[in-house]
């Protein structure tokens, strides 16, 4: 109960400080990032694998949803399709994990993500290529989620469902198998666990959640281009999971709060500095880097504990 109350208090503070409309749109982003982060927490914290290319799952979800909506098909069905596409890519990305362990497997996910990013630029007939693609607002049964309140409500509902589903998975036989593989892969295999299949399911769940978040993100932002989903996004998500603490599901939510709040804080710092001293792009990189380094050095288990 306490985390829920703390989150509500935090949301109230955000609305009071940022104003209702802007605050709500930021909260929608927090919930969306948290869904994506939840997928990474499953891969990282539960099954103990490294995914260096999580941005690719968001990209697939976003582009599947955009393409589906562009066909004039119902968006809600598109979310399901995006989910399936993400699970499929996740399953594919996990295949090298049958032969490789640890770092080498992480490197293979990096390669998959870089290939997906390049494919998005090249198949410009479908994706709009480097010049981008615009996405209409989400329409559910005749009701258009175009204002920040509706976006926030949809994201929060999806996040709640995702949290519930992940909690059930965590407490299931599969969840125990994930943790067994995380703690000792050889011992898990000796206990009759099919480690390849277990990793595949972790990546399928992680990829599906990432794609779901990507599909929502496409609607909230209204514009897609391949470079949004590159290596920086993958590492931002890793940072989200690490800062929040990958050992617990709620870590994804706290990490998402930090990731969305950080640029706001940096913008405030910049306003305090004299004009022309520093540009925003550099300050943002600097701020993200400093926070990441500080957390890794001083709170290696994440903030939420």
């Amino acid at each position, binding site marked *: 109960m306490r985390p829920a109350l703390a989150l509500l208090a935090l949301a109230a503070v955000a609305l009071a400080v940022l104003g209702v409309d802007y605050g709500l749109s930021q909260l929608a982003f927090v919930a969306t990032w948290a869904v994506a982060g939840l997928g990474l927490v499953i891969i*990282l914290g539960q099954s103990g694998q*490294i995914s*260096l290319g999580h941005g690719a799952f968001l990209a697939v979800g976003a582009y599947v949803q955009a393409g589906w909506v562009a066909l004039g098909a119902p968006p809600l069905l598109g979310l399901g399709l995006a989910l399936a596409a993400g699970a499929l890519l996740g399953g594919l990305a996990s295949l*090298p994990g049958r*032969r*490789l362990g*640890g*770092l*080498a497997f*992480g*490197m*293979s996910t*990096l*390669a*998959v993500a*870089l*290939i997906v990013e*390049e*494919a998005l*630029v*090249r198949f410009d007939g479908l994706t709009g290529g480097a010049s981008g693609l615009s996405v209409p607002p989400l329409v559910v049964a005749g009701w258009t989620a175009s204002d920040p309140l509706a976006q926030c409500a949809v994201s929060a509902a999806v996040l709640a469902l995702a949290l519930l589903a992940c909690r059930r998975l965590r407490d299931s036989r599969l969840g125990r198998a994930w943790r067994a593989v995380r703690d000792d892969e050889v011992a898990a295999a000796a206990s009759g666990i099919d480690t390849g299949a277990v990793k595949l399911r972790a990546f399928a769940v992680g990829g599906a959640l990432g794609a779901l978040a990507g599909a929502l993100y496409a609607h909230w932002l209204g514009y897609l281009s391949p470079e949004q989903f590159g*290596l920086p996004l993958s*590492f931002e998500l*890793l*940072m989200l999971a*690490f800062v929040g603490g990958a050992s617990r599901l709620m870590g994804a939510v706290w990490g998402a709060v930090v990731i969305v709040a950080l640029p706001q804080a940096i913008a405030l710092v910049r306003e305090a500095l004299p004009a*022309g001293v*520093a*540009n925003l*792009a*550099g*300050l*943002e*990189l*600097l*701020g*993200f*880097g*400093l*926070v*990441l*380094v500080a957390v*890794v*050095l001083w709170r*290696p288990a994440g903030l939420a504990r």
Partner: protein
Amino acid sequence: MIGQILLSGLATGCIYGLVALSFVLVYKATEAVSFMQGELLMVGAFAAVLLSAAAGWPAWVAVLASVLLLALAGALIERLALRRAMGQPHLTAVLLTFGLGLVLRGAVTTVPEATHRAHLLSLPGLGGQVAWGDMVASGAQLGVIAATLLSCAALAAFFRYTRVGLALRACSENPRIASMMGVSVPAMHTLAWALGAALAALAGSLMAPVTFVHPGMGVVALKAFPAAVIGGMHSLPGALAGGVFIGVLEALAGRYLPEGVNHVAAYALMLVALLCFPRGLFGGRAA
């Protein structure tokens, strides 16, 4: 024509190879996967530009000074931050180095002078062209290849003929036994980071006459991962060969295959290498 393509691929590949070399050097000695080699490369190039353009030093002296400066910076970063990530899971070092890379890139980007105009470092003696039959080699390309060969020879001599080089090799092979033989393992880690940063800075300075010096130039280091993987992650000659291989492959793919293939060729090859040859195409010894 084919010779021309091979030559330009070779020159690019030498840059990849140098960065991969710096990556593998650090990885072998400290088990840390560095995601900041590209940023070290960028800072090295900027240091060379700053020293030669702003301070008025001769270009080659500036390059040498920037390499030494980055070696010092690498040692300092290891002492202050990276040492604390020792013995932790791989992801800790990955995130820590990525974060430090963001700090470096952010610090350079916040300086308006660094982003507002393009910088170019011209190294004297590499301006002209050499014609050989119907092949034309630019001085910059030959300079990159020569400098790579020279630095690799120096590195090989260091590892083979000096006590410190032997100690570093021993430490990479088995830190516990090395420390029993009186090698200071922490000092070797510092040395590995200093060498790694110096090699990255050298690669940056060699890139500077060809491409513009800008805060995003570190992305070239992404090609160091495939190069290192193809070389088997544990072999220094393998990393260099992997870099050259990828450079040549990209040049050939850029000429003969549809557009875009050259961008993904390295990563696709990395996937294949990881799956089929986990110890590298050039078959390094088993760990």
